[in-house]
């Protein structure tokens, strides 16, 4: 596989990340594994003692697990849409970040559905979803859509990696034999021949083209699980686009945070430049405005309509004694702060944008909680003389342990993946930065130098 000097430079700069696992990464990975083990113990308790160890009861049947599911699956859709758009519109500045977006797509679609499995009470009846599907049910749509989307995500990431696999295969890196063999298999004989390039570009374009509408449809289907029910706070016509926008928005935030972390960790300032943060920051601002508009529209319509149950949910959301402070947090850090940070030139800097994105991501997680739990705590059939625990949801430690185990799995996959492929893609990389114009000539950066740096 031939690389131009800029691409070769990028490869030489990153090859040590693939060749060596590194102490820090090992410690991180062990830390994540331990969290996953704690989650495993919580899961053991949940299976052996039943869902009684969670805070979910007769009324609030969905809790943290579904919040996490929506959150992660939303990240995945965002990754697919961002990567698809950057690829289709041939956005040259976006090429270094496509890999991260695609990694986020695949990892999130693996982690997200795990939470559905955690929420299902009867594992032994899981296959009934396929044996007795009901085409009219949004649940069936969601199961089939996510499975279809999962296959697409794998293909999407793999397509983009084939050229790089060919590079790794030919690079004679200092890696174990099995890894070398795996690169060879995964490169599927790609040598950069004209006909091969044609097949690959057709496949990539086709897939990018299908992944964007697929993500939008699948995200809408997820929202319809809520929107199709007649519950207050859920039964809304804007839930489809609201979920799509919310997913895209939180995904954009996670992408910025991931970019910031890898930039620091692997010293990728030349590839994840200030320009990337500024450009993604602008995207963040536009999405934030759109998301804010939807949020206001949703709350305002429910509040103005004054329908009994809608009002009850709105009261819960804005009452400081109930969810008022969380609503304020979700909207302040989820809408106002990102806009301000990006709008002001002084704070339009990578660190500030990453910080705003980090809090925005947490705010959007809280927002998912506020969508699910207060509505379930407001049953259309009032319950009388019942235990407060049956109406009011409070997450238990096994739920939190499994939530953190999910986050640890997400981060562990990112760590492992960045040790298997370069975080900045090589083969399609273009030098769009004037500072690097002189780097078109071959530059010998040795692995040892990078490590000492």
């Amino acid at each position, binding site marked *: 596989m031939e690389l131009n000097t800029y691409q070769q430079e990028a490869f030489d700069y990153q090859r040590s990340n693939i060749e060596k696992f590194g102490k820090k990464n090992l410690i991180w990975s*062990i830390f994540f594994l331990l969290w996953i083990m704690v989650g495993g113990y919580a899961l053991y308790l949940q299976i052996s003692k039943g869902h009684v160890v969670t805070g979910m009861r007769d009324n609030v049947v969905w809790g943290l697990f579904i919040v996490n599911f929506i959150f992660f699956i939303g990240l995945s859709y965002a990754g697919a849409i961002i990567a698809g758009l950057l690829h289709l519109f041939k956005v040259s500045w976006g090429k270094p970040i496509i890999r991260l977006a695609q990694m986020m797509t695949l990892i999130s679609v693996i982690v997200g559905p795990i939470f559905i499995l955690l929420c299902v009470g009867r594992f032994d009846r899981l296959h009934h979803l396929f044996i007795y599907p009901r*085409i009219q049910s949004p649940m069936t749509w969601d199961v089939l859509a996510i499975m279809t989307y999962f296959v697409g995500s794998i293909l999407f990431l793999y397509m983009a990696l*084939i050229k790089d696999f060919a590079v790794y295969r030919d690079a004679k890196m200092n890696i174990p034999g099995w890894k070398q063999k795996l690169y060879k298999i995964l490169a599927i004989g*790609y*040598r950069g021949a004209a006909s*091969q390039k044609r*097949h*690959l570009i057709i496949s990539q374009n086709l897939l990018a083209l299908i992944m964007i509408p697929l993500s939008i449809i699948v995200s809408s289907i997820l929202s319809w699980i809520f929107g199709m029910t007649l519950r207050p706070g859920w039964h809304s016509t804007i839930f489809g686009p609201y979920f799509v926008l919310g997913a895209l928005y939180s995904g954009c935030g996670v992408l910025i945070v991931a970019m910031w972390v890898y930039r620091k960790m692997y010293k990728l300032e030349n590839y994840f430049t200030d320009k990337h943060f500024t450009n993604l920051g602008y995207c963040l601002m536009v999405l934030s405005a759109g998301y804010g508009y939807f949020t206001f529209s949703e709350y305002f319509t429910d509040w103005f309509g004054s329908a009994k149950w809608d009002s009850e949910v709105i009261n819960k959301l804005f009452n400081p004694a109930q969810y008022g402070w969380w609503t304020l947090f979700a909207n302040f850090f989820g809408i106002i702060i990102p806009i301000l940070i990006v709008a002001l030139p002084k704070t339009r800097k990578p660190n500030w944008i990453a910080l705003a994105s980090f809090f925005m991501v947490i705010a959007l997680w809280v927002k998912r909680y506020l969508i699910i739990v207060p509505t379930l705590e407001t049953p259309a059939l009032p319950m009388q003389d019942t235990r407060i625990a049956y109406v009011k949801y409070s997450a238990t430690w096994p739920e939190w342990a499994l939530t953190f185990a999910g986050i640890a799995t997400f981060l562990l996959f990112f760590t492992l993946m960045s040790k298997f492929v370069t975080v900045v893609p090589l083969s399609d990389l273009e030098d769009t930065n004037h500072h690097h114009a002189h780097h078109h000539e071959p530059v010998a950066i040795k692995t040892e130098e990078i490590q000492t740096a």
Partner: protein
Amino acid sequence: MKQVSIVKKLLQKLRSAAIPFVLLLLPVAIFAQADSAKKDAPAAKEEPSLITPSAEFTGIQKTGDSIQLKAVLKTKIKGSFIKLPLLKVKFLQVIDTATKELGFVITDQMGKAVLNFKVDPLTAGKDGKLHFKAVFTGNKSMEPAEEELTIKRARLEITAAKEDSVLNAKIKLVDLAADTPIKGTVVGIFVHRSFSLLKIGEGTTDDNGEATVEIPNSLPGDAKGNITLLAKLDENETFGNLEASVVQKWGIPVSDKLEDQPRALWSSHPPLWMLITFFILMGIVWGHYIVIVVQLFRLRKEEPHTATIANT
């Protein structure tokens, strides 16, 4: 020497790695301890105690000297009753001092054993009473249980009569021992529905032991319009339970054939547009996937023989 220092370094590393590991597992250990403490508690050896079952024994006198005996076996464990299935219950009739075995029945999942039989009127005592026993002889894990039942012989009759387009159920209640009508007793009239009995009226017997209850003419029947009318005397102090039934063509014929459901959101057949949209969408996406995978296979086939080696 060098080897020793390497081993020392390795041990140091392991020690430093062990600290966060132990810290992380601390909550797990605490919870695990809570559980193991329970397990470690000295288990007092208790003598295996036998389960003490109790029996509920009832009987229903039906038309034509037929009697239905029903025994339900259950036991109380931790404050709630548990039905006892698969146990052998013997039904006996006590005639003077002798006992005659009527048969045995194995209890079902609800702990219920039901025996239907025709009684010999001559086996009744001078007072017209019949004495029965339901006996469970016990087994390795359960103690025996026994219950007695005394029924005074009586007959409940029901006949259907149509008078001036008014539908009536006529009831007659007779004390068989004295061969006299039973007066002033309330008898309920029911009609069989899909899952249970529907009470449609009741009547009090007069001096002749007779009562008349009007039957509505709008009851849905089976495909032929038949309805089953049932007269019931429940838990009478003297005569116990009595039943009599008659089938009459007084209902509105309702076909028991399941009607074809339309394609709808609520039925088992989805609307056509929904199916078509679903398959088109899935077809488009999976069609794309197939094309892409085919392209990948072609890419693999077209690998040039002279490989370009990267200039590393």
